């Protein structure tokens, strides 16, 4: 299958140009994948200095491994996978919370909130402000899954490829992440109302 990047070149054309010594083609690859890679790195890594090293590391790995790219996935998904794995390795090395773990305590506020949901009309402006803070409170994995699906519009299959998780697990984690996000926002809103 021929995947086309935002710059109208197919992945195969871009890869062949880079392998043929055209460094400028790699600039096109960076530009077309930058958004996705930024999402993954920013959601998983808090330190700005480390983000810089990791971003460079991701693209150097991609450049050096380009020969081994087999076109079974989109180039952006493949580089996304490199970014995700690099972030996981970083978190493991720093002994930080691993994305594989699910640290968010599943709250039991669900039933209680159902009763108030009908009454609560959260304004969009307030929700945007609360949302940004609440997304940051989610685990690295939940955060990443949410933005990959809702902001980067990746399919479940693509997300599964990036995160090396089975598709069913991705769906399941996404349901839980959204539920948790909704509950936290409603709880926060309710608290502020009081």
């Amino acid at each position, binding site marked *: 299958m021929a995947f086309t990047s935002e710059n109208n070149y197919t992945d195969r054309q871009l890869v062949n140009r880079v392998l043929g010594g055209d460094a400028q083609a790699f600039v096109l690859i960076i530009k077309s994948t930058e958004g996705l890679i930024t999402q993954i790195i920013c959601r998983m890594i808090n330190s700005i200095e480390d983000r810089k090293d990791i971003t460079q590391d991701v693209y150097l790995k991609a450049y050096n491994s380009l020969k081994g790219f087999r076109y079974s996935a989109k180039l952006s998904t493949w580089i996304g996978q490199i970014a995700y794995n690099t972030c996981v390795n970083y978190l493991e090395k720093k002994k930080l919370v691993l994305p594989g773990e699910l640290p968010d305590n599943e709250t039991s506020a669900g039933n209680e909130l159902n009763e108030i949901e009908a009454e609560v009309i959260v304004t969009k402006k307030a929700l945007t402000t609360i949302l940004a803070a609440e997304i940051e409170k989610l685990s690295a994995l939940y955060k990443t899954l949410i933005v990959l699906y809702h902001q980067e519009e990746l399919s479940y299959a693509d997300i599964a490829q990036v995160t090396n998780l089975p598709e069913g697990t991705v769906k399941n984690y996404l349901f839980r992440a*959204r539920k948790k996000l909704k509950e936290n926002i409603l709880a926060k809103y309710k608290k502020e109302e009081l």
Partner: protein
Amino acid sequence: MTDHLTDDEIQQFVLSKSFSNTAAQQHMAMCESCKASAANYAQLFTVIEEAPKPLLEFDVVNMVMPALPKQKQPVVPGDYFIYGLLIAAIGALCIPVYLYKKDLARLFENMASVMIALIAMPVIAILLLQFYHIYKVYKKQMAAIK
């Protein structure tokens, strides 16, 4: 009224705008609580989609490109032609020297070595300078073509 829809069912409904079974559809039509939950999810998804995306604090292209390992420049067909021409020229110079080496030796045997050096050194220097100049012009033209 049937049991409330599960959270997963409500999310799935908001994402796909359809129900997998009619019982769930009928429940949603009647249940205010499930409707409110669906409305909240719909609002949440819209806000997430419209939320500003993060930006890196540095220019990725400017940071990555200079760090890339230098690739070996592939030899283009034009280069092969130039190398071939150079070898042919050296060969063309060496063959008569080899064939007429005795005559050449005789030609210089009566000349003082100082004299030979005085002639040879400027000739070699001029040739080297010429060669360097030609090479520089060639490089400049190739860079302009690229």
